[in-house]
């Protein structure tokens, strides 16, 4: 741990909005070889490592249910065994496997059905739907649990819809470790208003609880810009989509082609990444939005030139922040290595807490967990020598 114990400073309120009562942050870190929980003190100065959980398991995502602040779900598989979901009702002290993990419907005789390789994304449903969760899988599938993650069933019609299947493409069309359905978002004002994204396969919206969906592609560039039909979801690769908690009509997207913003009811994305320095570019995977100010978002740029190294440009890592909805971006790298740090941060591996000022956290594929207690002004390592980090979530506890 890089942080020492110090007396917490008196709590100040930032200009970016009000935070609620002081809460404790727990970081939920999913890695290729297991999961760790890092329990922070109230000042986020000292952290207690709890783990590994599921040592040797490939953990894609660990998420706390904010409705009870006790239930954790972990999406797991191993190098040999098929995918499953583990559930803890006591904040990780004990775990129990889902009785029925996400699985596609068995294909009719003579047809080639799909099988879930791994559950990639977990999202608790609306605050008024206790026990309901959504899951996105690789290959792309959308699933729902209505019993707190014990049993899962295919949700909506998209998993077997021929048009969606065409848009999803084959396993070869997806990201190196499989095409994914991710960024499942529930509008806090309406549990029937849902979004999800697919890599590849574009961004999709439902206004009727998943009965029907429509694409949200206008304004997005297409992969490689080779003149492909931009109206076809096949040619779109959203990496990470985030809705602003303070303004659910504002959505940010880190896409294969750059950074975008969408202000509803418009259905046309605006490319806001072009304001990034040209030398750095606006390619990356994760994106974090401010919990109380919809003009503020952070991204972690990676090299998307030539063979797409997807590492920090020139080996000089930084987070970039916009404080005006993407009109301008500012580099935040104080405390990070100045050179020869070729970091990759996956789409689920950067997050923020709800404190004031916001704490930011990211994990690298080289197993380093970094944090900032002041919205990115200063950075310090929180843990090192972890396995390849797949996901970092900041859960808030009373």
């Amino acid at each position, binding site marked *: 741990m890089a942080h020492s114990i110090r007396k917490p400073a008196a709590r100040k309120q930032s200009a970016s909005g009000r935070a609620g009562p002081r809460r404790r942050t727990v970081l939920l870190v999913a890695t290729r070889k297991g999961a760790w929980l890092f329990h922070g003190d109230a000042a986020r100065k000292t952290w207690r490592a709890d783990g590994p959980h599921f040592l040797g398991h490939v953990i894609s995502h660990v998420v706390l249910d904010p409705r009870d602040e006790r239930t954790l779900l972990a999406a797991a598989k*191993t*190098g*040999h*065994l*098929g995918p*499953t979901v583990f559930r803890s009702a006591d904040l990780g002290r004990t775990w129990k*496997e*889902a*009785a029925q*993990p996400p*699985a*596609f*419907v*068995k*294909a009719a005789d003579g047809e*080639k*059905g*799909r*099988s*879930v390789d791994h559950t990639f994304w977990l999202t608790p449903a609306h605050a008024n739907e206790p026990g309901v969760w959504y899951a996105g899988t690789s290959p792309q599938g959308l699933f729902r649990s209505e019993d707190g993650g014990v049993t899962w069933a295919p949700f909506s019609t998209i998993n077997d819809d021929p048009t969606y299947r065409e848009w999803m493409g084959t396993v070869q069309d997806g990201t190196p470790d499989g095409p994914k359905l991710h960024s499942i978002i529930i509008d806090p004002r309406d549990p029937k208003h849902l979004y999800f994204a697919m890599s590849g396969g574009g961004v999709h919206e439902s206004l009727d609880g998943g009965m029907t969906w429509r694409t949200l592609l206008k304004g997005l560039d297409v992969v490689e810009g080779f003149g492909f039909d931009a109206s076809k979801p096949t040619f779109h690769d959203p990496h990470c989509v985030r809705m602003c908690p303070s303004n659910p009509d504002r959505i940010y997207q880190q896409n294969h082609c750059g950074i975008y913003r969408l202000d509803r009811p418009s259905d046309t994305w605006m490319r806001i990444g072009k304001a990034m320095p040209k030398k750095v570019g606006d390619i990356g995977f994760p994106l974090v939005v401010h919990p109380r100010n919809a003009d503020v978002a952070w991204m972690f740029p990676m090299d998307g030139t030539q063979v797409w190294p997807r590492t920090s440009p020139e080996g000089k890592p930084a987070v970039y922040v916009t404080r005006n909805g993407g009109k301008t971006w500012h580099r935040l790298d104080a405390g990070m290595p100045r050179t020869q740090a070729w970091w990759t941060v996956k789409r689920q591996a950067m997050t923020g807490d709800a404190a004031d000022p916001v704490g930011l956290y990211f994990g690298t594929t080289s197993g380093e967990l970094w944090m900032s207690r002041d919205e990115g002004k200063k950075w310090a390592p929180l843990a090192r020598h972890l396995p390849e980090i797949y996901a970092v979530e900041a859960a808030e506890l009373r």
Partner: protein
Amino acid sequence: MKVLIPTPLRSYTGEREVEASGATMGELLADLDRRFPGLRFRVIDEQDRMRAHMRFFINGEQVFDLERKLKPTDDIQIVQALSGG
């Protein structure tokens, strides 16, 4: 019949060796899943395909078919295949 269980599945069985019954490989795995819930899906996918890194042997002979007939005297081995680091 006797079934040898690889280490990744012992969190289900608690034992290296268990008894199970069935007239086919599919029935045997169903019996194992009844006794050790969740085990089958970790080795057989939802399309009834054997998972890529699991192997099944009857008396030392590798099998790929869940319809493969079994005799009560058969010994079954479930093995984890190499799957990278």
